[in-house]
């Protein structure tokens, strides 16, 4: 840019964009909340309002959760072997493991 005018000095070096929050939305009552994205906000109430404007202005949203991003701990990909693999072996956790007599509908 030709205009080299530096940004005016801020009163201090605080972050100019507020805190980062993760947003989780539910599209229908009864369904789980899913990660929708993030917003910046100074506090939880504003984070909720911003999340509504950004992630709920199209399409149905029945409920929103917000959480400060730095309060979320994520597993790393190197965790993924011990963390998630065993689930596949434990067949008794999966519904296909259980046989139901013909004609019986237990999930109606």
């Amino acid at each position: 840019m030709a205009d080299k005018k530096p940004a005016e000095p801020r009163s201090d070096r605080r972050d100019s964009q507020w805190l980062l929050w993760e947003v989780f939305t539910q599209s229908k009552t009864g369904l789980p909340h899913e990660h929708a994205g993030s917003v910046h906000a100074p506090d939880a109430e504003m984070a909720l309002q911003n999340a509504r404007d950004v992630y709920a202005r199209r399409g149905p949203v029945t409920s929103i959760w917000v959480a400060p991003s730095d309060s979320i701990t994520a597993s790393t990909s190197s965790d993924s072997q011990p963390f998630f693999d065993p689930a596949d072996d434990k067949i008794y956790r999966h519904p296909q493991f259980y046989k139901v007599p013909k004609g019986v509908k237990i999930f109606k």
Partner: protein
Amino acid sequence: MISNRDSKTGQALFEYLLRLGDDRLVLGHRLSEWCGHAPILEEDIALANIALDCIGQASNFLSLAGKVENKGRNEDDLAYLREAVDFRNVQMVEVPNGDFAHTIARQFLFDVYSYPLLDELQKSADGEIAGIAEKAVKEDRYHLRHSSEWVRRLGDGTGESHDRVQNAFEDLWTYSEELFFTDEVDDILVAAGIAPDLALIKKAWEEMVAKVMKDATLDIPGNDRYMAQGSRNGRHSEHLGHLLAEMQIVHRSYPGVKW
């Protein structure tokens, strides 16, 4: 819709719908001027949402006004082809945006008026008005949440924000009385069960304004000042003419075309 829009009720209804429509059209227009210039990205999106709601509500009220008038004018004819003296909005919504504190204070004073009004209009004897209000009141509930939360933050934020928003309320107070102006238009419609009594709305308004301003550590301005009047009958500030000149320029430059 009431079946007998006899000429007296019909004319009052037309006037009343212009008041409802023009308030929201002019306010939405002012809010939309913020688009791309707000203090932070999230607020750009929030203000645009509120602007959209206001203009959508205006479009519905003006469209119904055109039907009631029954002279073949639609919402665009009413928005784009009337002169300032024919507009029926309060002056509060036409004054320039000022800083963010001014925009928020104005929005708050209007939302506290509009939300209970729309809430009552849901029970209107006119089914079409009730229908528009039913959708609009949900939008307004959110507008009020947004503006009142911001009044709290600016009032009880920093010294600078406190002074700015206190000054904004002082400036805007001049325009607050107009919100509750009534004349024979209201008398006729209140009697017909179409419109609520604004005196009741005023009571709710005063309580809510007092509560939020107290939370926000702000002083309620006194009434010992010039109180603007006349806009419900077409006497506006100088600002409206400029606003309309901009809003109507393209539409009027090419009469009768499709867009």
